[in-house]
Each structure stands twice: as structure tokens, then as C-alpha cells.
């Protein structure tokens, strides 16, 4: 069966064994099982959230990450103390990997006061600056200069770190992304742009959205910047190539564009009415059968003798249990009060400073 993937050099049969890359060679079995747990946690969390959405308990949009789990896990697990991350609206996976709890995330989806943004942000706007995670941004490519600014601040403060700045394949055609690339390369800013190429910008395939179809990361050459393409279903490869880019940022303050091939099983959002029209169900099924990053990692762990079906089931059961508990937590949590709508707008007002008490800030009837 032939499935039209963008006419890109296939990296799936790459002769390089990325398991032997320095960043992977010393991984302990429990770390490898941890990656599996993280991927399963994302999937089970999102499956639980989908049920809530279908029950009408959630407003707005729900952009599911299912199918792409290896990208968030492979990249974000590399973050050190001074590494930061920022992404777009398909942000649940990133949030869970950086250490946000399922409870606060599920509660946010239901618009509850116990949510990570107190019910003010919703699905697209999860933040945890204490975990170096800066969102969760709703406007396509709008976060790309923010990642640049975060990395700029690291360099300004003379901290050895970088900002992993995620975007989708649809975002590469936005002007501000190109402005960001130019500034990053011009000023030696330690930012790593990670294009999660799931092949569809909403319902528009890559072939219908990009003039150059074979490769998106190659656009970096226009800005004198290093780039690479990554087979996203191979966790070892994701880690190895991302680490190379992070090293380039840490050691030389040089930016990189990585394009990580991946695939989403659900529509652009759950409200995507044409989710099964712009691509054939057979295509989705093909990816589930042959390219599922979790199945592939499970198989790898079995081959390495690290896991068997019983161990995998135990990890999966824990993820399901955690997800179910988060649903319960979210359902049991209260909604914000109407007057809470006026908190978290101005820092000075929230803190009750003199500036916050000077002049009228809000203009209600």
C-alpha cells in the first residue's frame, strides 16, 4: 500500500544506529521505560480528554497530540536547568513531559479554577514558567519570536541554555517565523526551532501549502543556519539530533531548525469537521499500524530485553489510572468565580502595588 508522504528522503531505513549516539548510549533501562511512561501518559491523558470533549464538558478547541508523542518526549527530556521550551496550541504533550500534572491540565480543559491557568487559558494555553515551559500559544507562529526572546534573555544573562521552540508545518509560512530565523542567525541566539511536521496544516496538506515540498527545514539555509530532518518515530534519533542542536546552542550560541517528521491521528482539532475528508482513513490506519511511536518504542524495549508485555501493561495501566484520576479531579473542581475574571490581567493590580492602585484599570458599567 502506498501512502503519499511528502517526497522527502526517507530516513526510516537509515543505517545510522542512533541508539549508540553519546546522548543515548548511557541511558539506563529505567530512563528508557520512563520515556515509554511519558508517551503513554500523553496518550491516555488525551484519550480521556477526548471523552470529556465528546460529552460536551469542554468548550472551544481540543487539538490532540496523539501520534506525535515521541517528539515531545524525545526532545524535552533533554532539557537541563537553563533550557526552556515554548510551543503552539497542540501543547498537552509538552506540558506533561516538562512535569505539569495531569490534574492541573485536565482541570484547565474543563475551565476549572484548579487548572494550570485557573481556567483562563484553556487547551491551547498551558504554562509552567517554574518548569521553564512558556506555553501554549494559540496564534500560528506567534510563539516563534517569543522563543527567540527567551533564548536572547539566556544569552543576555550569560546562562548556558537554549529555548526549544516548537511549531507546526503550517507555521513555516508565517512571516514572523522568517523574521525570527533571520534575527536568530544574525545575532547568534541559542534557539532551536523544532518543526513538528505532521503533514497537515489543518486540512491543507504540505504539498498544497509549501512551494518547496521535500523539506521545510531547508528554509534555514536562507538564513545561514544549520538544519536537519529527523525521523520522529525513532526516539533515539529524535534525541540524538535534538541534542546536537542543543549543543550547538549551548557551545556556540548558534540556532538550528529541526524538522521532525510525525503524524497526528486525529483532526487538526476535535472540531475538525473534515478530518476524514482531506486524507483517507486508510492513510491514518497505515500510520497507526506501521509508524506508531509508542508501539515502535515498546518493540525496541522488548528487543533490548528491557520490557515485556507485563511491564508495558503495568506502565500503561498506571497511565490510565492517572488519567482517570485527573478526570475525577477536574470534574470535582469548582469553576472560577465571575469576579476572578479581573485577576491576572495586570501584575501591578494583582500585587496591590501603588501603581496597581493608581488610576482606573478596568472599565465596566
Amino acid at each position: 500500500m502506498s501512502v503519499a508522504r511528502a517526497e522527502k528522503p526517507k530516513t526510516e531505513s537509515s543505517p545510522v544506529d542512533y541508539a549508540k549516539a553519546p546522548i543515548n548510549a548511557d541511558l539506563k533501562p529505567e530512563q528508557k521505560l520512563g520515556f515509554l511512561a511519558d508517551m503513554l501518559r500523553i496518550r491516555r491523558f488525551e484519550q480521556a480528554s477526548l471523552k470529556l470533549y465528546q460529552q460536551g464538558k469542554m468548550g472551544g478547541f481540543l487539538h490532540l497530540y496523539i501520534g506525535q508523542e515521541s517528539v515531545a518526549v524525545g526532545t524535552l527530556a533533554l532539557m537541563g536547568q537553563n533550557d526552556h521550551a515554548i510551543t503552539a496550541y497542540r501543547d498537552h504533550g509538552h506540558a506533561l513531559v516538562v512535569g505539569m500534572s495531569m490534574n492541573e491540565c485536565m482541570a484547565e480543559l474543563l475551565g476549572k479554577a484548579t487548572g494550570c491557568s485557573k481556567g483562563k487559558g484553556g487547551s491551547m494555553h498551558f504554562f509552567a514558567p517554574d518548569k521553564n515551559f512558556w506555553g501554549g500559544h494559540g496564534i500560528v507562529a506567534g510563539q516563534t519570536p517569543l522563543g527567540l526572546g527567551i533564548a536572547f534573555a539566556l544569552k543576555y544573562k550569560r546562562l548556558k541554555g537554549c529555548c526549544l521552540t516548537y511549531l507546526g508545518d503550517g507555521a513555516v509560512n508565517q512571516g514572523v517565523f522568517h523574521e525570527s530565523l533571520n534575527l536568530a542567525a544574525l545575532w547568534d541566539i541559542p534557539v532551536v526551532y523544532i518543526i513538528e511536521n505532521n503533514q497537515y496544516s489543518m486540512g491543507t496538506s504540505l504539498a498544497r501549502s509549501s512551494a518547496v515540498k521535500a523539506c521545510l527545514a531547508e528554509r534555514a539555509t536562507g538564513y545561514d543556519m544549520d538544519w536537519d530532518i529527523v525521523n520522529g518515530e525513532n526516539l533515539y534519533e529524535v534525541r540524538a539530533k535534538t541534542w546536537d542542536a542543543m549543543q550547538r546552542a549551548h557551545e556556540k550560541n548558534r540556532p538550528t531548525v529541526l524538522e521532525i517528521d510525525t503524524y497526528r491521528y486525529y483532526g487538526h482539532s476535535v472540531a475538525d469537521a473534515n478530518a476524514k475528508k482531506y486524507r483517507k482513513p486508510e492513510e491514518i490506519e497505515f500510520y497507526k499500524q506501521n509508524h506508531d511511536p509508542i508501539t515502535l518504542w515498546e518493540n525496541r524495549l522488548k528487543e533490548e530485553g528491557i520490557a515485556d508485555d507485563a511491564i508495558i501493561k503495568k506502565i500503561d495501566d498506571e497511565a490510565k489510572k492517572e488519567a482517570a484520576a485527573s478526570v475525577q479531579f477536574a470534574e470535582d473542581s469548582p469553576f472560577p468565580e465571575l469576579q476572578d475574571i479581573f485577576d491576572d490581567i495586570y501584575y501591578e493590580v494583582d500585587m496591590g502595588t501603588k501603581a496597581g492602585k493608581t488610576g482606573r484599570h478596568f472599565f465596566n458599567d
Partner: protein
Amino acid sequence: MPVITYRQALNEALAEELERDESVFLMGEEVAEYNGAYKITEGLWKRFGDKRVIDTPISEAGFIGLGVGAAMMGLRPVMELMFWSFAYVAYDQIINNAGCVRYMSGGLINCPLVIRGPANGGTNVGATHSHTPENFLANTPGLKVVSPATPYDAKGLMKAAIRDNDPVCFMENTLLYGDQGEVPEGDYVIPIGVADVKREGTDVSLIAHGRAVLTALAAAHRLSEEFNISAEVVDLRSIRPLDEQTILDSVRKTHRAVLVDENKPFCGVSSQIATMIQEQAFDDLDAPVQRVCSLDAPAIYSPPIEVQQLPTADRVIQKVLAIS
């Protein structure tokens, strides 16, 4: 007290804040080696170096977004827009990111950012370079908007803006850069959200911000000389937060209000002031609130006509006479 220009007052404020706080940096087109398109940053690159005063490519969305990200990390960027008209290509960054990130994060993040530059018509540069977006920006909860009319206010408000922990849009005016006024040496801060009565009067309140304050003052002078009408001039200085009390106190004293506003009339800043006065001081009014705004068309190029498109003292006087 030393007499310096509005331009020098801003320059002093920037220099003193750069000196005071290592986290402050300036960024924008031509701010460093060129010394500023309008020379607001003159000498600062030479004095503070490449790290603190940074020239950008012409790339407003990119560098304003960078400033937002850097501010989220605790730096205090002061970003120059050569014209506020150019904010329109960076609008997503200003409104969605600077303006909304605190709310979206449930208060986990704040954005101590200043975006500054001239926002005015009257310089014969056509519609695209003559916008006055203070009303648009003040329409976004999360942003603050200030608009100083004098050198003294420019310096004090700039210091307040840089020290503020929320994003502040600082609206200057190229026609004011050369104006002179008394400015004390050294540190002082004018709180954001405090209006100033620039001229006391008893018969009518002229309420304005930015250069329109000077138009109102010129009108008040002539009203006194030629018509024996005592006009009070209230300078908003800050649009959001807004000092409603000073406005209401003035209107309750004079019982008449004429709002002078270089915004276009539809949903301009003066629209908000007018609705606030009728809501809160209706019984104190002896006449309908009147407005003098820019004539409601894109800014015309033709030099002698553009002068008339902006509020003039003559138009202010006509409105005052109509309700006196």
C-alpha cells in the same frame, strides 16, 4: 531648573534607567549606531555599548516578539518603533502576546516591556505613517497606554513605564520632540494613571492628551484673551489606567466639557471620556459634551490641508463658544 527639549528629556530618562538597572536594554531600528531616527537615543550606544543598545533589522514583528519573550524572562526591554504606525505589522505580538500572556497563564507570567515611539499626524507623511493607535491599544486589558505632552511629563512617565511590571505603550509625538520645558535634574517618576491640570479655569474643561493638550492650551489662552472665557485644561497623560477623578472634578467645577483628541472620532479615546462623563457627571453638565477630533478620513498628505485635519485651536474655540 534646567530647560531641555522633550527629546532630551526622553534621552535622560533612558540613560538614567540604563544606568540604574542592568536588565534594561534598548532595541529598535537605528537606535544605536545611527543614534535614533529621531535622535531620542543619541549617544546611548556609545555610552552603554552593543549589549544594551541594539540596532535591529526592519523586522517589527520579529523584534517586538523577541522583546516580549525577553520580558517574560525578567528583562526590561525598551523597544523603539520608528513610528507607532509600524506597530500594525507587529500587532499579534503586542496584543496577543504582550497583552494576553499574563491572563492566559493565569497570572504566572508578567511582561515588563515598554514599546515607545511617535504616534502622530501632522508631518505630511501620508496615512500609513500618521496613525494614532492609542485607542486601539487601550482597548486591550493587559496593556497600559501613556501619552506625555511636555518634556517634564515625558521624562517622569518614561521612568515609570520602564519600572512598571506590565507592558506599557508609550506614545510620543515627532512634533513635540523639539519643544522645550523645565525638567529637574536627576531622578523623579510621574505615576502612570495620574492626570494633570495644565491650566486652571472655571467656565469649561478642555480635556486632552499628547499634543492636543498644547492645542487646548492655545485655545484656552485665546478664549481668555478674546472672549473672557476661563478654560481649564486637563492633560490625561495616561490613557489606561485612566485618572477619572481629575476629569470629573474638573467637569463638576466648570459644568462644560470639550474633549480635544488627535484620534479619529469613531471609538477614539475621547469617546470613552465622553461616555464616562455622561455616566458619572450628567447632573453636573450645563451643556452636551463636545469633541474636537481629527477629521474622519485617512491622514491627508497635502501640507496646508493636513494642518486643518488635526484639531486646531480655532475648532476648539468654536465648540466652546457653541456651548457657552
